[in-house]
């Protein structure tokens, strides 16, 4: 069915439904899948000409930043849409006049886990109600409204500038546009603070607490981004009376205000009340770290691990500190003990097929930006595109970040040496096991306990119970299969790395490490779940290890070593090419996307200057991409280069505006 142009919004993106109301139905069905803050608000309207024979149109878009504290404010938003439809190009035209007939605003309340809905008839009444996870209707109370208001604010704060969160037809408004609005936010946050744990937390947090959750994250981000911690501090001063743990947030606020002495005193006092709070220990730890007092900080970090051994962040902090202190053995061992959590991603709407997507675009802002069309600058060498690291998420991304920090300090060769000195290597493991097998195991018992190994090498390890067999480590979600130029990484196979077809160099080059030493491909370490490797038969009578000073390497960490190897390999080739072309006085050509990928790669590996160069090269090409501007903005900002920071910020803002972010 064709959508007439006179039915479209002038400035607002929208998606047209195939079946009227299907977006609302889909959202209702998906409600029970929202685990945390929920997706952005959904605004659905029915457009109509009023003429007989013309079908009504269902149109919807996503939006955040709308005041969701009452039905009136949401109704006002819907009403504003009535003026947003494209005017008839000629007033005397006989074309139908489209109007918004009615609208429904949906806003997820993350505290009570219900969807707030406001139906508006134009002209006519406003009807507000609550839809629970089973799709049943209820009356909305004042408390529900407050929770909805805060939920909407948190989404606006946390989602709007999250580059990994993409959603079609997502309109972003400033959530707080006045001091009064800020005050209302603070009051509501205070009232709901004790319930903050219900809205979930960052993917790196296992268990949301009253101080580790999206509410506290939103508060700290909102006030922290603008460097105005005073209001946050005021809020936390009130709250810590009931919740001593809030002192960790208060202390961080004071540190943000350069009130360090006060922060230290607050922590010291709170420590007497809640010495087992890892957030408090971390606040103190971060402070000491900023003062270079690593020895003190590491003691606190160790204590934090003892208090919360199930939290990734405690082990992460300790690992960081061991790197600070140059204790690389301990860093690797600590990294190995990090718990990994399944990455669920943000709560999302189910994507529906649409009749039409309408994304209005204006020339005025468009003149600053390149054409939004795909060109050859959006192509890239497959070797660059298949790097596994960008696929890492959540705890795996953070653990990888620790690993890259480690390698940037000690180099690849030293890292491999450290690795093989703390972890049991594959060959050692197999020899040890093989000896035990021969000594202790009668012939028939070999295949009697442990997984059934088929002739073709596949393993059928059957189902196990919780108490009997430890379940295998969860497969790291987001780490793609690693293929090194199509060849699988073979266990125990040590080989000089030879680039072949598919590498980014056309002429074969040796892979040189930073010191001119050839880069070694890592040997596989013996992991906890090696029992199911086809080349090792698990046997009940196997003796335990005698390497009591060596540890079994977690499978996910082994995987990260392979990811790192890929990153380093590509980076090394790239830098060798740059040097080569330079000595030949030949221009080194890459597409815009390739420079972008190389910039990201450089940043991951902590090569800031080279990464900056790469992002600058991005700008030479007319590729529609905000990332280089954002990255350069951050870099110039850190360098204190005001002029360039502003220039890049202007461009970044232009991109945001073109993507329906409305700044006030």
């Amino acid at each position, binding site marked *: 069915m064709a959508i007439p142009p006179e039915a479209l919004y002038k400035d607002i993106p929208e998606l047209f439904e195939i079946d009227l109301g299907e977006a609302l139905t889909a959202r209702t069905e998906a409600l029970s899948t929202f685990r945390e803050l929920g997706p952005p608000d959904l605004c659905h309207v029915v457009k109509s000409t009023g003429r007989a024979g013309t079908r009504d149109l269902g149109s919807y878009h996503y939006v955040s930043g709308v005041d969701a504290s009452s039905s009136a404010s949401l109704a006002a938003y819907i009403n504003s849409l009535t003026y947003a439809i494209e005017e008839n190009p000629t007033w005397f035209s006989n074309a139908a006049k489209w109007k918004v007939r009615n609208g429904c605003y949906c806003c997820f309340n993350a505290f009570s886990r219900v969807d707030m809905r406001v139906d508006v008839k134009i002209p006519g009444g406003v009807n507000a109600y609550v839809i629970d996870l089973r799709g049943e209707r209820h009356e909305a109370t004042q408390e529900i409204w407050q929770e909805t208001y805060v939920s909407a604010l948190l989404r606006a704060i946390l989602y709007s500038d999250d580059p990994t969160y993409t959603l079609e037809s997502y309109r972003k408004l400033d959530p707080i546009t006045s001091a009064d609005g800020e005050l209302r936010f603070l009051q509501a946050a205070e009232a709901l603070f004790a319930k903050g744990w219900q809205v979930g937390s960052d993917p790196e947090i296992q268990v949301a607490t009253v101080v580790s959750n999206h509410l506290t994250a939103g508060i700290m981000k909102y006030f922290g981004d603008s460097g105005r911690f005073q209001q946050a501090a005021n809020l936390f001063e009130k709250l810590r009376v009931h919740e001593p743990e809030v002192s960790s947030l208060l202390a961080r606020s004071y540190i943000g205000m350069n009130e*360090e*002495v006060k922060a230290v005193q607050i922590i*010291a006092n709170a420590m007497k009340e809640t010495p087992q709070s890892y957030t408090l220990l971390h606040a103190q730890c971060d402070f000491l770290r900023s003062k270079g007092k690593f020895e003190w900080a590491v003691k*606190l970090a160790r204590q934090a691990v003892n208090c919360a051994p199930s939290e990734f962040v405690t082990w992460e902090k300790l690992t960081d500190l061991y790197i600070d202190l140059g204790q690389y053995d301990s860093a690797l061992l600590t990294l190995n003990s990090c718990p990994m959590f399944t990455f669920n991603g943000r709560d999302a709407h189910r994507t529906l097929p649409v009749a039409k997507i309408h994304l209005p675009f204006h020339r005025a802002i468009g003149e600053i930006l390149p054409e939004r069309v795909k060109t050859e600058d959006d192509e890239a060498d497959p070797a660059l595109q298949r790097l596994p690291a960008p696929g890492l998420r959540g705890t795996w991304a953070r653990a990888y970040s620790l690993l890259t920090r480690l390698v940037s300090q000690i180099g690849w060769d030293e890292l491999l040496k450290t690795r093989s000195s703390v972890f049991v290597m594959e060959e050692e493991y197999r020899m040890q096991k093989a000896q035990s097998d021969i000594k*202790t195991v009668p012939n028939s018992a070999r295949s009697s306990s442990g997984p059934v190994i088929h002739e073709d090498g596949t393993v059928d390890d059957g189902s196990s119970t919780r108490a009997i067999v430890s379940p295998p480590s969860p497969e790291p979600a987001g780490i793609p299969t690693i293929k090194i130029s199509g060849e699988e990484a073979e266990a125990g196979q040590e080989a000089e790395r030879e680039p072949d077809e598919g590498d980014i160099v056309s002429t074969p080059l040796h892979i040189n490490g930073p010191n001119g030493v050839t880069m070694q491909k890592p040997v596989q370490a013996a992991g906890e779940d090696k029992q199911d490797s086809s080349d090792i038969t698990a046997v009940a*009578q196997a003796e*335990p290890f005698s390497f009591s000073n060596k540890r079994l390497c977690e499978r996910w960490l082994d995987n990260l070593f392979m990811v790192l190897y890929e990153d380093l390999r590509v980076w090394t080739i790239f830098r060798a090419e740059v040097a080569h072309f330079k000595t030949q006085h030949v221009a080194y050509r890459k597409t815009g996307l390739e420079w972008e990928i190389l910039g990201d790669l450089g940043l991951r590996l902590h090569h800031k200057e080279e990464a900056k160069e790469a992002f600058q090269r991005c700008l030479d090409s007319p590729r529609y991409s905000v990332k280089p501007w954002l990255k350069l903005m951050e870099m110039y900002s850190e360098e204190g280069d005001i002029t360039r920071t502003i220039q890049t910020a202007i461009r970044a803002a232009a991109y945001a505006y073109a993507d329906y972010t409305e700044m006030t």
Partner: protein
Amino acid sequence: MASPESFTFTVGKLDAGMAILLGERAHLIEFPSILLPPGATTGSIVNIAVHQNHQAERKRDNEFWELQNEILDTYGRESPKNPDLQV
């Protein structure tokens, strides 16, 4: 009922990470292999004794609070003075 001084278990199954130990009255536990004596194999009988180390706890707590005091002394005593500007 107080726990006994020492528990006796038979090693039922041994893996690189965990061992299954079997006790009296169909008691079955998972136990870290690394804590077993080097010669232990399937069928071995082991005695396990676990005691609280109060002395080490006191020592640790003392060190913690000493550290807290040091931190407070070093960074929490004085606010920085406004610089005395000589014009």
